[in-house]
């Protein structure tokens, strides 16, 4: 007891020495000493902590660079119906296949690729193909994301929409997509020359927004009735404000996860369409990566005779489209994958 009193006296005595008055300042009061926090800046800082993300950005940059400037580096026509195959090969003595040379950096499209490809410069084909594939992927992903987000948000928010949308989803999931593409392509085939791009965009967007919409719906149903949303609703917040300011920001990480898979997903989907001959036609001057890959792997393996596929011996045929396709999809996918992690606020700081 006495001890405590003694310490107390000591503190009172020394108070003048311990503290000095520095006055007040309006500015100092308002200043925030901790570093300012910005969600997106923190996300991107988190993103670039992963070394492979930087590798991916470099790969992506290279692919996009060559997509734009690649075809200009070697001046060959992508498809020229006025020339014959023999003319396109230049020297008929070369034969049907030619490995990369100084004139043809990825070699020449071989005989197995069919009459419309045979003799074309593979470098030009591949980068022209990458251009159309990328354009298609960006357009289709944008449409899918916008439609998917809008429908998903409305679907989750308005209860009366749920039974209708569930029926539509069940219906869509019961129709095999590839079969639908085959059947629709039979209807559209005559218009491919003039409206090819729009038809392919339509095929790839038709049902694929459903994935994002379903995930949005499930997530929104989970957070729809949280306290802060009920409070907002009680205060009379309008539905559009609720969706835009209360629900969507909460789901950024999940949205980014889904959206990140979208671009490589569309590129893959186009490759699959091309595999079944449902994509563009090079005779109309349109070429995609899927077409190049499908054409270059044509040959004996698919037939009953079997034997040795021409592209297995002339391996440059397979390698050329893969050199573009694999870095392109992996980099998009991995960047999205890492971004999904980085946009989770729990990983910040």
């Amino acid at each position: 007891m006495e001890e405590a009193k003694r310490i107390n006296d000591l503190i009172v005595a020394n108070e003048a020495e311990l503290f000095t008055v520095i006055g007040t300042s309006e500015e100092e009061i308002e200043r925030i000493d901790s570093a300012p926090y910005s969600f997106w800046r923190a996300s991107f800082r988190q993103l670039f902590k992963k070394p492979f993300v930087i590798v991916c950005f470099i790969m992506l940059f290279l692919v996009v660079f060559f997509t734009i400037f690649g075809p200009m580096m070697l001046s060959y026509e992508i498809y020229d119906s006025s020339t014959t195959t023999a003319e396109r090969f230049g020297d008929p003595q070369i034969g049907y296949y030619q490995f990369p040379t100084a004139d043809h950096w990825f070699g020449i499209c071989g005989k197995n690729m069919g009459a419309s490809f045979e003799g074309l410069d593979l470098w030009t084909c591949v980068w022209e193909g990458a251009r159309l594939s990328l354009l298609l992927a960006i357009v289709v992903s944008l449409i899918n994301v916008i439609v998917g987000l809008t429908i998903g948000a409305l679907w989750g928010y308005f209860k009366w929409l749920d039974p209708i949308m569930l029926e539509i989803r069940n219906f869509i999931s019961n129709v095999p997509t590839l079969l639908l593409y085959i059947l629709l392509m039979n209807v559209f085939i005559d218009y491919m020359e003039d409206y090819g791009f729009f038809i392919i965009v339509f095929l790839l967007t038709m049902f694929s927004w459903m994935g994002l919409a379903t995930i949005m719906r499930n997530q929104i149903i989970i957070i729809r009735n949280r306290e802060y949303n009920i409070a907002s609703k009680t205060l009379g917040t309008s539905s559009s404000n609720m969706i835009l300011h209360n629900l969507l920001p909460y789901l950024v990480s999940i949205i980014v996860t889904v959206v990140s898979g979208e671009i490589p997903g569309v590129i893959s989907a186009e490759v699959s369409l091309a595999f079944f001959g449902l994509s563009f036609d090079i005779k109309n001057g349109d070429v995609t990566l899927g077409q190049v890959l499908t054409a270059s792997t044509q040959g004996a393996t698919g037939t009953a005779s079997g034997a040795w596929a021409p592209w297995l011996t002339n391996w440059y045929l397979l390698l050329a489209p893969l050199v573009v396709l694999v870095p392109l999809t992996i980099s998009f996918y991995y960047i999205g994958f890492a971004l999904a992690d980085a946009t989770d606020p729990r990983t910040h700081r």
Partner: protein
Amino acid sequence: MAFYLIGYSIIFFIIALVIFIELVAHRIIYKDNAVMQRIFGHPLLRYSLRRVGSSLITILLAVIATFFLIRAGYASEMDTLCHQTQFGGVPISKLPPQLVEDVCVRFEKDMGFAGSPFEQLGFFLYSILPFPKTLCTTSFTLDSATGEYLMHVQDCRFFIMDLGKIFNTSVSGDQKEVYVIDFVFQKMAISFPVGILAVLVDLGLGYPLGLWMAKHKDGIPDKLGNAYIITVGSIPGVAYYYILLAVFVGIFSLPSVYNASDPLSYIAPVLTLGLAGLTGTALWVRRYMVDEFNSDYVKFARAKGLSENRIMGVHVMRNAIVPLIRSIPASVLFALLGSFFVEKIYNIQGIGNLLINANASKEFFAIQGVVIIEAFIAVIAYLLGDIVTAVADPRISLSKE
């Protein structure tokens, strides 16, 4: 006659059973009979009935949509198709010209293309709805005595479900005018061995990989596994299949064409399918295992001094397996349908290849048939998945109460 009798008695039996189950479940009859209540009033049974009922409606809608798509895509082709067709092995060009028009009209009628769209839809639903019926198509044979092709043969057959005929021999192989329903089952038998072996590879390698990754979370196995999963997940499937084909055929010199009697030729397609499929399995096994790791029961088991392997293999696995088991019936049943890509690449003459050929030669009955059978298989598969989950996990009850 016996066919009709059996067919209708089966339908009657099913309807009676459904009514009986509903009555028991609603406690209208056998209210106090505990045994009957336990067997026929089981929530799982009622749930299955409801599921099948609502699924059948969805299938019907999907099938009608397919019907209209096919009509839109092929209606203008009917005449060309008729002229390519061989009736009873007789090319139409060998028939006398005055007969050709008559033949084509009959052909349209047989194919369900005659009359207004509603009549066509009615005929179509009549043929595919599963109840016993007799349906006939026209065909011709060569009269060897006179050397003329004039004999109309009403080719009739009993059906539970009629999916039409395949006329083009480039689709049906050596068989002339084969019924789609028979043909699809023949093709399934070809698709199934590769598919089921791939499922075995998928599960047999996917589960250990997922376990291994979960056990060494953030370690080297986890990183390697993730790198593989991301690579396979991101690059287009077709590119991946060709890379594997190049590895199997180019480096290991395995046969590149599937042959049912050569076990060596199974390796490439089975591994191609299996190695792609196992990424999904491994990913989910890892995720569920990691989620379970933080549960109280795992901490408790660890505190009691159980070995890590025992915790993983017995306690965690038992819980983590519940969400995973749902997809197993689906993967086994979908093995019947094969894979488009792998069947085309390795020349396996199964369902996938059938569809591709059928589209190329505009054999729309085959396409339609496969869509319907696929839809049925999907419904059964997901229903089985739910049932298996409910059986594996006593916490799940499918009743509303």
